[in-house]
């Protein structure tokens, strides 16, 4: 009874459960499909509950305490994206063009989230171990799986479309509204066909490990696209509105199915040109043809392959590469570690961070997006400085204003991200080893950790800046780079001392949100960057400060080695 009460309460803030209730109403239909309704019901209810408690992928994993409102948070996030779609419709006066762009965004957004969010469901191995051994028919398993995906999908579509539909229902006539809903459904079909195609191609040609990697990179790509859209979207829309562009002029839009689907509205508004008619026909036929092609291809063989993928027992390969590896002597990271570290303990810290950060998918998944923002910032900065000026004058302007220095300081933000990620891991339980060994000087170990982070994630940026800035802005930018990197070094030691409270990869998640601290550091870096920009023309002063900064960095490094790291003590749980 207690449980029943809880679910009915949760229903109010849980869309997925609501959709599930609705689906479960059609008991007869499900049974006529050959499903054991009782099993079907409990499998779906359990899956929805599990899904609601799993940590959110966009946020850091908080495996420690499971969430109980994941669905609602995700729903709101999608709705915010839906609001952006609405803005497109509001801003672009040409309904045909607005819809083309909006539907293109909708379809691509849906496709990408489908791939990234639904792959774990498709590849979920737990079904194999928990449901398959029970007397549940294949049909029930397959249908409950598909239905679960459908529930999630509808949840997402409703969230994405809600703002647009609400806006439209106040501003368009009734036929337009119904047509829009039809168009949204067709676009969903297109996205499904597209995702299906993606799966079929990748599974056919890629080994499972690579496949999972690709999904990770798609997730990274997704966050980049959102970021780019945020920066460039308003500019683009402004350009489109100001120059009164139409579909006829934007020929590249013609190749997208979303444009074909959008042309229904143009037909409705009385534009009976040949182009509109052909596009509309295409828009109507292509989604269904795609579904037909997929169901033909999405055959038993494909399902079996997915099941084989999910079982996850990758056979152990006898690696011949292993033998050749032994002969080549010490690997690169060890030579590097031995070069920069002064004791085995320090080397241990160096190598664990170096190795695990390059081998763990989840780590890369969380770090790379924040690294990839940097080039985008750089391009943005470059585009925005002296808009409309020719290239050479732009360069002069950048050099004279010292704006490029801002880039150096922006790159220092990565240090913060790296150090926040470095203590977390899915495999945090493997950290028992730190408490068993005689860790007499934890400071040494953590210094190794610091050195690995700096060499791996900060040094490359500085080398890159060096290669870019010296040819573009001249030798005089060297001292600026030296000063900013010294600031970065000092920053990283301070972060290490005050914010890093655990051994590397030893925590399930960030225990508390550090948003305030992050903002503080951000502000501080901004301030330092600004001060640097103010003095950057006094070359000697910059040189002196750089020397001072580096001296301070090395002194602090010595201090870090001696710190006793009380915070790393064993927590008996």
């Amino acid at each position, binding site marked *: 009874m207690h449980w029943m009460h809880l679910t009915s309460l949760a229903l109010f803030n849980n869309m997925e459960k609501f959709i599930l209730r609705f689906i479960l109403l059609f008991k007869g239909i499900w049974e006529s499909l050959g499903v054991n309704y009782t099993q079907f019901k409990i499998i779906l209810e359990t899956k929805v509950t599990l899904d609601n408690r799993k940590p959110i992928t966009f946020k850091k994993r908080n495996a420690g305490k499971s969430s109980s409102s994941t669905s609602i948070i995700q729903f709101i996030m999608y709705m915010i994206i839906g609001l952006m779609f609405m803005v497109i419709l509001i801003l672009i006066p040409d309904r045909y063009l607005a819809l083309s762009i909006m539907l293109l965004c909708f379809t691509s957004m849906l496709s990408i989230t489908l791939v990234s969010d639904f792959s774990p469901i498709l590849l979920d191995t737990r079904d194999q171990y928990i449901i398959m051994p029970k007397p549940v028919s294949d049909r029930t398993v397959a249908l409950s799986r598909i239905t679960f995906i459908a529930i999630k999908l509808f949840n997402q579509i409703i969230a994405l479309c809600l703002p647009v539909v609400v806006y439209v229902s106040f501003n368009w006539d009734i036929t337009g509204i119904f047509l829009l809903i039809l168009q949204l459904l067709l676009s969903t079909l297109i996205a499904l066909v597209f995702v299906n195609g993606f799966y079929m191609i990748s599974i056919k040609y890629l080994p499972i490990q690579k496949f999972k990697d690709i999904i990770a990179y798609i997730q990274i790509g997704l966050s980049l696209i959102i970021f780019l859209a945020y920066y460039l979207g308003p500019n683009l829309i402004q350009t489109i509105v100001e120059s009164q562009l139409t579909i006829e002029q934007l020929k590249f839009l013609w190749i997208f199915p979303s444009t074909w689907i959008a042309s229904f509205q143009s037909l409705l508004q009385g534009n009976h040109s040949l182009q509109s008619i052909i596009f509309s026909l295409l828009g109507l036929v292509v989604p269904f043809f795609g579904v037909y092609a997929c169901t033909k291809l999405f055959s038993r063989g494909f399902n079996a392959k997915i099941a084989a993928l999910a079982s996850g027992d990758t056979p152990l*390969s006898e690696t011949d590469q*292993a033998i050749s590896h032994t002969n080549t002597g010490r690997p690169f990271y060890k030579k590097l570690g031995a070069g920069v570290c002064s004791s085995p303990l320090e*080397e241990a810290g160096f190598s664990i961070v170096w190795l695990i950060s390059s081998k763990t998918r989840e780590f890369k998944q969380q770090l790379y997006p924040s690294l990839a923002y940097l080039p985008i910032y750089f391009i943005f900065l470059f585009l925005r400085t002296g808009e409309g000026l020719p290239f050479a004058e732009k360069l002069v302007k950048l050099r004279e204003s010292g704006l490029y220095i801002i880039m150096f300081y922006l790159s220092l933000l990565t240090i913060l991200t790296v150090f926040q990620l470095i203590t977390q891991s899915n495999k945090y339980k*493997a950290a*028992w080893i730190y408490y068993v060994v005689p860790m007499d000087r934890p400071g040494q170990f953590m210094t190794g950790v610091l050195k690995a982070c700096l060499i791996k994630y900060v040094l490359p940026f500085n080398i890159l800046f060096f290669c870019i800035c010296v040819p573009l802005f001249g030798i005089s930018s060297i001292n600026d780079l030296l000063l900013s990197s010294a600031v970065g070094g000092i920053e990283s030691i301070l972060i290490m001392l005050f914010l890093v409270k655990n051994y590397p*990869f030893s925590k399930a998640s960030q225990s508390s949100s550090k948003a305030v601290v992050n903002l503080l550091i951000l502000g501080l870096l901004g301030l330092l960057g600004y001060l640097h920009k103010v003095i950057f023309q006094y070359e000697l002063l910059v040189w002196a400060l750089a020397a001072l900064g580096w001296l301070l960095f090395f002194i602090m490094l010595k201090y870090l080695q001696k710190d006793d790291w009380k915070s790393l003590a064993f927590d008996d749980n």
Partner: protein
Amino acid sequence: MESTLPLIRIIDLKKSYGTKEILKGINLDIFPGQVIGYIGPNGAGKSTTVKILTGLIEDFTGQVEINGIDIQKDPLSIKSQLGYVPENAELYEVLTPMEYLDFVGKLYGMEDDIIQERSLKLLSAFGLAANAMSRMDTFSKGMRQKVLLISGIIHNPQIIILDEPLSGLDANAVIFVKELISLLAKEGKTIFYCSHMMDVVEKVSDRILLINQGSIIADGTINELKSDPNESLEHIFAKLTNTDNDALDASNIISAIQ
């Protein structure tokens, strides 16, 4: 043997969590070369004892000395003499055995050459030479357990504490590890063996300690513990720990599912 000084000396060891007393005064002397079978029901205080011995829990009352060193005064020098593999221990699976052992060895402060040499030798002795350079996420449970065992002895410790070391190992590997334990004992290593597998404990240990509800209730060789020659350790265990009336009775289960 009894004439030498004890390697591990535990005097009136007590530990409580809140009001719950987990260890109620344990007294023990353990001598070099002994293989101690440490058994007891779940929640008896076994893992708490092990955590205290390995320096993980530092606040307790009583005294624990290893090699004459008080563990509360100098836990680090004691840790360096210990080799410990926890039960169901995890390791960084994305690493290769060589990388992992290199990491562990360096945490023990060992030099690179020695780690390399020993890891290679140990890995091939455990039959893992071909997999020395492949990531452990492809390994079976038994293979991972072998790597963990290696990581527990790579620094040549005086005392080896093993918690369910045979889990996941196949029958051949079990024989191999049992052999290894007796060889290590012959080398003068002291082995502290915790397990629920009574038949193995009976075979490998030359002294059995039975802990129940925070106190040691039996201490001796298997022959000393037996009241009649046909009795197995399993029986002794059941007899000594199932004192309550609500002891588990399997026949209740049968009647429940009928």
